[in-house]
């Protein structure tokens, strides 16, 4: 018999699960989650979640991008530096300056965007701890409804406030369509 991971309640409308989430947040639970087939507007404050941190990754990626672009262009065409396996070569093009931020801008701009995109997506995966191909919810009998048309709220056993009876009665009080157990 597998250990219980948590208790899970199913709801059928976004309004129901919003109200339910607010009650669970107000009850002080920390190890819980809401499953929806699409993002519900206003669910983040209903769960007491703060702003996502993906943007921090983006700004780091973008800074690396523009720096890489400018440095690469300066080194390759505007310097005579000698690095292992690569030497700069001051290419003479019509007597124009060997390096200028203006001509270096298009390539640096594209690299800024490219590195920002990689950083944002990488950041999103890191913050979400994805890929995560194993999770107790993925074994649940109604998992297909979570990506289809139903909304779930589960509270994990690990939560310090978890109590089989109290948590179950809290969930029952939210008028769900069904209450079940998640197994580890």
């Amino acid at each position, binding site marked *: 018999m597998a250990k219980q991971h948590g208790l899970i309640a199913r709801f059928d409308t976004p309004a129901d699960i919003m109200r339910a989430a607010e009650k669970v947040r107000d009850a002080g639970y920390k190890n819980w989650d809401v499953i929806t087939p699409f993002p519900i507007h*206003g669910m983040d404050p209903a769960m007491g979640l703060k702003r996502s941190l993906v943007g921090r990754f983006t700004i780091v990626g973008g800074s690396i991008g523009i720096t890489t672009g400018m440095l690469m262009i300066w080194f390759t065409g505007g310097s005579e530096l000698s690095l292992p396996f690569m030497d700069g070569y001051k*290419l003479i093009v019509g007597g124009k300056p060997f390096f200028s931020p203006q001509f270096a801008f298009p390539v640096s701009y594209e690299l800024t965007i490219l590195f920002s995109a990689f950083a944002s997506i990488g950041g999103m995966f890191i913050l979400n701890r994805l890929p995560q191909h194993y999770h107790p919810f993925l074994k649940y009998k109604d998992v297909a409804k979570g990506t289809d048309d139903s909304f779930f709220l589960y509270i994990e056993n690990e939560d310090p406030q978890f109590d089989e009876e109290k948590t179950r009665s809290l969930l029952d009080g939210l008028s769900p369509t069904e209450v079940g157990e998640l197994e580890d």
Partner: protein
Amino acid sequence: MASANPITSEMKPAILDEVDPVDIPRPALVENNRSFSWITEKICGIVEEKTPTWWWVCFVIACATASFTVFGLIYLVASGTGVWGLANPANWGWAIVNFVFWIGIGHAGTLISAILCLLRQKWRTSINRAAEAMTIFAVVCAAIFPVFHVGRVWMAWFLFPIPNANAIWPNFRSALLWDVFAVSTYGTVSVLFWYVGLIPDLASVRDRAKNKIRQILYGFFAMGWRGSNRHWRNYEMCYLILAGLSTPLVLSVHTIVSFDFAISLLPGWHTTIFPPYFVAGAIFSGFGMVLTLMLPLRAIYRLEDLITQYHIDCMTKIVLATGSMVGYAYSMEFFIAAYGANDFEIFAFVNRAFGNYAWAYWIMISCNVISPQLFWFKKIRENTAWVWIISIFVNIGMWFERFVIAVTTLTRDWLPSSWGYYSPTIIDIFTYVGTFGVFSVLFLLFLRFLPLMAMAEIKAVTPQADPHKH
């Protein structure tokens, strides 16, 4: 009980007691009040059902057409660039025209995904997945031309700043190199944006999978997505950021493509209107292609409830708007040439309209300036057959626009002794026609194996998804 109306009783002006504000209903984005499960079933059903016969027929024809490109390119590499029609003075011929054509088509996908997302245009949700796929496949077709036009394709990697035995670095002042970075970035970011958008829908397909192989394949790419709101929070932020990044990307990529021409000194090319003109033209041709693809799909898969007349209206209005911008750009080019009193510039434009490529010029004008103006009329916008026909004309016109720009200037530049006439060879023609086959093969594979609409996004914009409604 808090209502959605932000006007509280303390703020309410007296006039509201006498007047009853009209509640104008927004057009339904999903008609017939379809449920979430109907949406899932409709889109996943396409991926799960047995491959229809029409798909096989189209696939065989597409593969046969794509083989033209394959054989054309093999012959080109084996024999040399002399097999194309390029010769003095037109050393840029069909290759650059085809490249700009395909990249332009790609831009509509990014516009729909990114710019319409930032502008909160909820109608984008039923077309964005297919439009983004169109972008990626268009970039693949476009990239074929710069890679192969170099002649010695095995040295194409010299375009990147990688140490080589000749100790040569690329010339970062050249717009052609900016193109390399712009198009590579565009292709990469488009694929990433498309894939990120696919993750929740791949999870839907995974959860409905009836056999183990499907479950593993779709599951692998779904990254273990389970619809957790803690994940949605970061996902939505990432999506918004990608939309915000892709917007300047789409604007800059076609700007840089226009720089291929604009930073030269040739009459007809060296004008500051080129960047906005090319970007508007790209969006114009891209939406033309989106309509060309989506209208038949809508009929075949019976998607009328998801791609409604409102969607078609919005798309045709964008075609009308961008087509008008392109028409304005044509007239501005001409006006500034005349006003600037530059004889060579004036000649360039008179030559376009009345010289030896006048046939191409007038095809361009009738397809780009005249045909989209028909979209002012509601009767035309509501007739899907007409909309489809006009969308084909838009694409024909935009190809000819790039042709006219490139070839008329090159064949009639400063010195009459340099003048010539450019004709494509049969290899040029077959290689180009084949790229439509390459595009179709990729698009058909997309239709067969991946959910062609963004189910999660469509559900989110239905009225049932509003948590304040009940």
